[in-house]
């Protein structure tokens, strides 16, 4: 235990640490603004269901797109090996869709291409995310988690017209 013992940090390195921390603070602010102020959020728990019976009754017994009111839709999507039900949905441009997705067997993923909808689909859990699409076009929703041999073919299309 001598007097020499101390953390002497080179001034260049000190500045580097300051720069790193400052950079991270800026990034953290940027994602906070995008998330909590602008509304680009990650999913939160919606509900828990029983994957063994979820497709027997209730909204996932007849999954599909449903108009709540003009310009406002909800889409109950059932993921199973190896398809999404429904496979195709059509909405007018500028409408808002809320997806409620669950799986009746293994884990799947649901990514709506060219939007920020990208969510895990986990049996027993309901994944809920909303999106508003202004640009007309075909938006594929693809399975992004390995779910068995037919995984690569698992997709559907949201048509915005």
């Amino acid at each position, binding site marked *: 235990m001598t007097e020499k013992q101390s953390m002497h940090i*080179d*001034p*260049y*390195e000190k*500045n*580097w640490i300051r*720069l790193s921390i400052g*950079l991270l603070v800026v*990034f953290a602010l*940027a*994602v906070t603004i*995008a998330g909590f102020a*602008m*509304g*680009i*959020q*990650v999913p939160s728990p919606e509900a828990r269901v029983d994957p063994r019976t979820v497709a027997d009754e209730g909204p996932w017994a007849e999954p599909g797109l449903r108009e709540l009111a003009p310009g406002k839709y909800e889409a109950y999507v059932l993921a199973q090996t190896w398809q999404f039900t429904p496979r195709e949905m059509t909405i007018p441009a500028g409408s808002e869709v809320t997806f409620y997705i669950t799986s009746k067997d293994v884990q799947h993923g649901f990514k709506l291409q*060219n*939007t*920020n*909808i990208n969510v895990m689909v986990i049996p027993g859990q309901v994944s809920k*995310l*909303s*999106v*508003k*699409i202004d640009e007309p076009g075909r938006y594929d929703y693809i399975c992004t988690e390995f779910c068995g041999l037919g995984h690569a073919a698992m997709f559907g299309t949201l048509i915005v017209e």
Partner: protein
Amino acid sequence: MAEHKNSDNGEFHPKGTWVILLIFVVTLILLWGSVYVILLSRGVTV
């Protein structure tokens, strides 16, 4: 030439390191920023 950079402990300051890491930080900001812009352009989720 006078300057034979002597790397004796006391005098050595990693200036070149700073340059390299600055390049790294600029690249980081550009690449991270571009993904962030993609995020913003793809619209809200709630």
